[in-house]
């Protein structure tokens, strides 16, 4: 059981290092919090509008504003509205021109819909054009009815308001397919769920890598040699070291899981599945950390490589920008990272509410990666201890 003693020593040294307090405890949850504040939560789209104070204009704006998920904000001039869109205070702007009602009756009304290229305002376009279209329909129909019956058009406009259920000849209905992606899943998600699982993956890995510095210290301080000089077999030293690394990774992971659940109400899906992912991914991280610890020559190098590699793999594996947003080729490339597999597995559990059997493939791949990394690390550690460093 000397292996356990070694492992316990490794973990307690990690825990006692106060500089870890921020990076391991505060930073991950702070990031989950900010991610949730920025990306989570349903956001109302904001439509800036400039409209004269006449009936038809007001009616149009009220019609649009009554839709769920849209907030209409009045601006004084077109220039102000355009600036508002530029500054991202509004997602889009609708500018109606003076005497809108009169122009409408004469069939000459114009309106301007202003968006930012690539901005969210495009989503408002169909809604705005539909509302505008409806008002146009009523106006044109009233004009035509007036011609046919000889009655004044205003009478018809009053009797058939644009926002009411108008008779139609053709009903356009949307039939949705697909829904493999983000938009569909996120509907049922809590605000912080997406951030929590991706950051869990990022931090467990990066903490394992930066903790590799501890292993280097052991080498440099001659701890390893001293351990070997005691009646401890090399195998026990190696197993102990690996278990220690695993302990650190698990500690970080469990902390984030519990913390996110307690502080932000994050659900992790099926408990057995979630723990399985955590354990296997921690093993991968432990292997990577141990390998780095046996390869790097000093603390600074290990830290630099650890941070760089940790961030890089996290980005590539979908822990910063979600995998669903990746172009197809990049999504395939992402599969070389353990992060991608862990993120996908969590997505299945948390977003799609699946059970552990659904994530068996991901777990298998992660287990294979863990075995490969640990084997490489063990081999390296043997080399290093044999050389007496």
């Amino acid at each position: 059981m000397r292996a356990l003693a070694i492992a316990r020593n490794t973990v307690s040294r990690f825990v006692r290092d106060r500089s870890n307090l921020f990076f391991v405890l505060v930073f991950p949850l702070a990031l989950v919090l900010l991610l949730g504040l920025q990306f989570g939560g349903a956001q109302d789209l904001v439509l800036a509008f400039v409209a004269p104070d006449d009936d038809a204009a007001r009616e149009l704006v009220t019609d649009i504003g009554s839709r769920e998920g849209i907030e209409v904000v009045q601006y004084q001039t077109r220039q102000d509205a355009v600036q508002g869109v530029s500054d991202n205070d509004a997602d889009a702007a609708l500018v109606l021109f003076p005497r809108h009602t009169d122009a409408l009756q004469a069939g000459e009304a114009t309106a301007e819909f202003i968006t930012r290229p690539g901005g969210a305002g495009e989503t408002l376009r169909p809604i705005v054009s539909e509302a505008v279209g409806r008002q146009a329909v009523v106006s044109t129909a009233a004009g035509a009815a007036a011609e046919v019956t000889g009655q004044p058009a205003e009478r018809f406009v009053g009797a058939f308001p644009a926002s009411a259920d108008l008779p139609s000849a053709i009903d356009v209905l949307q039939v949705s397919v697909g829904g493999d992606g983000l938009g569909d899943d996120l509907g049922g998600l809590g605000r912080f769920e997406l951030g929590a699982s991706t950051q869990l993956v990022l931090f467990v890995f990066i903490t394992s890598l930066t903790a590799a510095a501890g292993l280097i210290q052991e080498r440099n301080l001659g701890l390893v040699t001293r351990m070997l000089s005691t009646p401890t077999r090399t195998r026990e030293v190696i197993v102990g070291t690996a278990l220690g690394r695993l302990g650190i990774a698990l500690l970080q992971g469990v902390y984030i899981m519990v913390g996110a659940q307690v502080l932000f109400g994050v659900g992790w899906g099926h408990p057995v599945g979630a723990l399985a992912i955590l354990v296997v991914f921690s093993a991968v991280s432990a292997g990577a950390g141990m390998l780095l610890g046996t390869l790097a020559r000093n603390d600074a190098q290990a830290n630099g490589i650890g941070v760089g590699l940790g961030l890089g793999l996290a980005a590539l594996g979908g822990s910063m920008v979600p995998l669903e947003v990746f172009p197809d080729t990049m999504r395939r490339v992402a599969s070389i990272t353990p992060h991608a597999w862990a993120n996908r597995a969590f997505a299945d559990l948390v977003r799609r509410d699946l059970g552990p059997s659904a994530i068996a493939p991901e777990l298998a791949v992660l287990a294979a990666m863990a075995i490969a990394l640990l084997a490489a690390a063990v081999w390296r550690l043997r080399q290093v201890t044999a050389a007496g460093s």
Partner: protein
Amino acid sequence: MRALLTITGKDLRQRLRDRSAYLYGLVVPLGLALLFGLIVPGFEDEELSLTVGVADLDGGQLADQFRSSLGSVGAIEEVTELPDAAAAERAVDEGELDAAYVLPEGFSAVGPRARPARLDVVVRVDDALPRHVAISIAEGFAQRRNTVAVALAMVASVSDGLEPDAVDRTSQIVARRPPAITLEQGTAGDDELDITTYLAAGMAVFFLFFTVQFGVLSLLEERENGTLDRLRVAPIRGRAILGAKVLTSVALGLVSMTVLVLATTVLLDARWGDPAGVAVLVVSGVLAASAIVAVVGALARTAEQASTWQAIIAIVLGMLGGSFFPLSDAPGWLEPLRKLSPHHWFLDGLGQLANGGGPTEALPATGALLAFAGAAGVLAAFLLPRARAA
């Protein structure tokens, strides 16, 4: 003065030989920026061209009219015939088509009717733009006929039933009238960085706070290993030593940022904005970063402690300032905290320049950064000599 330059030169040479300066100042930020550039699709204003399908289960006149109207829509590149609704859904789901229209049997049945005809638009949930355009096209087609339906209802509301030729007459009148409202398209410039440049700039300014550490850290390291005492014994003004350390930080920061701006522009097509404006922002940013890092270093007792605290400050300010991801949609109470971060002002200044404005657009942000530099600088000037003497 000569002493200051000599020490600075020595420190710079030392740092350049030490690979960690390259790592944080160049490799990692550039690597991440490049990675993001590959991952995040560019939201370019592409000419939208849709491939659509039509499942015409009706074959009547109205259905024909719809199909031929599709031919005159600019955004539609190709129209495919489909056998039925199931085939349409499959084709759209699998990405073969951007959208499909299903015209059910009875679509073209003429006459004032009890129920409107259905026109199904099959779209993918995840692709917002094709979805919107496909639906708008259908609605545009429906609008004219719906206008007739509304007009007929209006006529019927004041007469006792419709005359036999009412439908035709009304249709002709409606066809004669122009659309009552024309919706024009306007564009607002973007006072925000495009996503690639944002991520590149965010990474650059984040790692800047690590790059500029090296100057002040060397002060502490020399204090610990005794060379600082030796320097003080030499006929060199104390201020020269401190000045050299700060100058090293500034120099490293400037070089790193310049290389990153150029590299991301060339490799990633990042658009930083007006060069003069960017230069002023970069210089102010480097000064602010160096000053803040100097204060932290002056307060620390050991080089290791300084390094840890500098990392913490860099991360907190970076997070709040939107270096990792924008916080533009976060709740309002976060605003004042964001404004406390120099990263926020750096990115904000770049955003102002993004709209093609001249260097003056970035003045408020530059001012804020210089304020940070000034305040922290004054504090550092006060604290560093004490650190040197310790």
